[in-house]
């Protein structure tokens, strides 16, 4: 199950997958012109991966998202939640910006939407 790594751009995060730890990384800022196009292959890959893998961790450090990216983040979380219901070990590590007082609260808002393990950690400098 090959994952094509996406390099970061000024408007999109880097997305990569480490098969050894079954971890999907999303790092950077996210305001693509069309978030649905941008995230569609990621969500499609995720759907397949979650039928084949025993578990998957999403390690996300995104300090800025536009509205449509936020919607896509929820879609990703819903996909993981659905898999969790089937016994897949879904987990999220959400990294927030210590410098930004809103960042932690926003992470909590995302956490409220899932029932699987969701830990909030500071972004390491």
């Amino acid at each position, binding site marked *: 199950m090959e994952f094509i790594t996406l390099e970061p751009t000024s408007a999109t995060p880097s997305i990569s997958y480490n098969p050894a730890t079954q971890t999907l990384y999303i790092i950077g800022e996210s305001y693509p012109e069309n978030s649905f196009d941008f995230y569609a292959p990621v969500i499609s890959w995720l759907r397949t991966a979650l039928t084949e893998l025993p578990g998957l961790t999403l390690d996300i450090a995104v300090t800025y*998202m*536009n509205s449509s990216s*936020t919607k896509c983040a*929820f879609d990703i979380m819903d996909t993981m939640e659905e898999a969790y219901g089937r016994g897949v070990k879904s987990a999220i590590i959400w990294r927030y910006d210590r410098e*930004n007082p809103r*960042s932690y*609260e926003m992470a909590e*808002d995302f956490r*409220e*939407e899932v029932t699987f393990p969701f830990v909030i950690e500071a972004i390491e400098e």
Partner: protein
Amino acid sequence: MTEELRHTERISEPREDEELKEMRDLVERAANTANPLTPDIERLVKNHTKLLRRFNKIVSLSDSYQSQLRDFNLRLELMAHTDPLTGINNRGYFMELLGMEMERAKRYGRPFSVLVLDLDHFKSVNDTRGHAAGDEALRSLCQVIKGSGLRNSDFIGRLGGEEFAVAFPETDCNGAMGAAEKVRMNLEKSEILHNGSAFFITASIGVSEYRVGDTLEMVLNRADQAMYQAKASGRNRVCLSE
């Protein structure tokens, strides 16, 4: 904070819009009449409720991201205006403020004055005590200027290197001379502490008053010339432009 609390409330309890209320009534009616579609209707209502809640959450999160951007912009704006070493206005912003002040003075026929200040023998502070001591002297100078009874409307700027300026709105040259002399005296007796040793610095100051027809450069140049005159006549003094 109150605004943020209100946001939180809105997320945890999605607004009961009319549509949702209607759907709940429908579920109730379906259940009461033993309608076979009841479980399907319940599922639809559940999905709808989730979507509504999600919608509210996305809107509120987007607001938070936007506020975050606004904060960053403010910080960036501040950085673009500020001299990082001393925290006072940089040259560009000082000139912008001075430009506005000049327009005001021109329109209402009001006076304003500026002083230009240059530290005496600053190079030797850097050479003998090191650049960190020089930096400390510059920071100390700014504290002295601020602590010399400036009014809220007066503003300071770092023009470059060891050259600073203060603008005094609504002030003629006599008032500005008084303020400049106060700065000079306070600076002269202010001890600068660096690496356990103490030293003193002095400054030469030139003052000029805005004259009708002046450009910004003309007012500042005259203050500059007066400052050089203060240097030439022995430093640690205030001179008024001719």
